[in-house]
């Protein structure tokens, strides 16, 4: 029998995500995928899945789910105070649910998003090579829309529920979500910033504005002086920090536009994107310049942390 979870409460914005659809960029389709790729991947590995299987990305207020059959799940990302039948359960660890078990969440204590993985992965619609939900096109995931009350979430691949031993990821191996310092590499158009603004970019404290979503974050803070903001449009990447003529920087996130003509003055490194993904409007952040070599070290450290979950216990 295939395991299913019934949705009692949908949460604020709960969508199916995987690692996105990079091959659709040439058609102007946002790459999409999980905002916090580390937490998404860890959740999958904790239940014995490949990192590319679909998880549930839950934003700010998590859903309430009821297990209709026995299943193995894992919750990662921010700390949303998960409970099974009212009792606190750990995040960053695999967790067995019995038929009728009710997964709910208490107070959000850290971060903006959590990821729920299930052994076998969530069943979802594949669009342009990915199961990720694209809300703009209304494709992928669960009919291209967020999860609603009374939806039934099904497991893609039937698995014996206890084939995987309990696994967990210690805090020391996870990104330091409490440290809102985003490391960034100087961008291709940094020189278009006025020299004073160049140092300001890496010294000022910025606040994630209300006008922020899966496409990108507008940053409130000191305005940057930029010249020549009319560059011939070019391909963009997640983490790119654009500065339009208004001087208000924008950090591109998972659902970013694929091309644009604003100068890119810095790019948040891949190891800092999970931390960026856990910021919410009102959070303060700082950008710190880092060399590509240092960035590779940080990227490898996170990759090694995920590797500790690979094959462990199986």
């Amino acid at each position: 029998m295939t395991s299913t979870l019934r949705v009692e409460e949908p949460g604020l914005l709960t969508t199916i995500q995987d690692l996105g659809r990079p091959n659709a960029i040439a058609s102007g389709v946002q790459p999409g995928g999980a905002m916090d790729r580390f937490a998404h991947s860890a959740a999958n590995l904790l239940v014995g899945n490949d990192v590319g299987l679909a998880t549930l990305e839950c934003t700010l207020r998590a859903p309430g789910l009821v297990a209709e059959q026995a299943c193995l799940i894992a919750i990662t990302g921010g700390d949303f105070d998960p409970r099974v039948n009212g009792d606190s359960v750990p995040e960053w660890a695999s967790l067995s649910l019995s038929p009728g078990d009710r997964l709910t969440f208490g107070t959000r204590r850290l971060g903006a998003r959590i990821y729920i993985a299930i052994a076998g992965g969530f069943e979802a619609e594949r669009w342009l090579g990915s199961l990720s939900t694209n809300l703009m096109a209304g494709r992928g995931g669960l009919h291209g829309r967020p999860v609603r009350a009374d939806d039934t979430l099904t497991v893609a691949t039937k698995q014996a529920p206890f084939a995987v031993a309990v696994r967990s990821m210690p805090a020391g191996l996870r990104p330091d979500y409490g440290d809102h310092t985003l490391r960034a590499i100087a961008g291709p158009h940094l020189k278009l910033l006025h020299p004073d603004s160049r140092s300001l970019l890496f010294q000022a404290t910025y606040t994630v504005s209300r006008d922020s979503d899966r496409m990108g974050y507008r940053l409130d803070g000191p305005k940057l002086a930029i010249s020549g903001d009319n560059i011939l449009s070019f391909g963009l990447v997640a983490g790119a920090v654009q500065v339009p003529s208004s001087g208000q920087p924008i950090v591109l996130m998972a659902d970013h536009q694929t091309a644009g003509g604003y100068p890119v003055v810095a790019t948040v490194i891949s190891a800092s994107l999970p931390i960026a993904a856990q910021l919410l409007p009102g959070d303060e952040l700082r950008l710190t310049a880092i060399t590509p070599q240092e960035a590779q070290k940080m990227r490898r450290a996170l990759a090694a942390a995920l590797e500790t979950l690979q094959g462990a216990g199986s």
Partner: protein
Amino acid sequence: MRIQPMGDTALLAELSTRLDTAINTRAIALATALKKRRDVRQAIAGYASVTVQFDPDQATHESLASAIKRLAAKRPPMDEPGRLHRIPVSYDGPDVEDVGERLQLSREKIIEIHTRPIYRVFLVGFVPGWAYLGPLPEELALPRREVPRTQVPAGSVAIAGRQSGIYPLPTPGGWHLIGRTNVKLFLPDSDPPCLFRAGDRVKFFSAAQ
């Protein structure tokens, strides 16, 4: 050519800062060649640039920059004409009168100038199915609207600077809307999901004719 990091797993190779068909042809050819490499995850041609995402376990910025310079030094490919799309337009957009006033042109003259060239698809991007078309004749060049619209209807035919474009989806937009077409540009159930590809050619004609 300027090659610079765009984060730890990507770089931007800028071939030029000019809007030029021959340079765009080179950028598209360079992106195509780069996509065949095992250490390249994705290569996207811009107007005059290529954004390359690479596998950081197989390549560094330096190794890839050398590879790009080698590939770019090869003889540029022939600019083979891309597929030609004929797009019917009703030139009754909400900005057609304003554009006429600002440029001192009648609606008929705007139609004549806008339908004159065969445009090139320089790149597909920004939002699903959007194509940057150009060059737009100088006589119609206007800066973007000072206040962008929060919602532009799908199918709106627009101009800005030396470019033209068609809004594939209802999105915010700052271009001048001179007409509309019922041709669908974003085809979510096809693969690739858009009508235009970089290098294609586009000819507008007045649907009233």
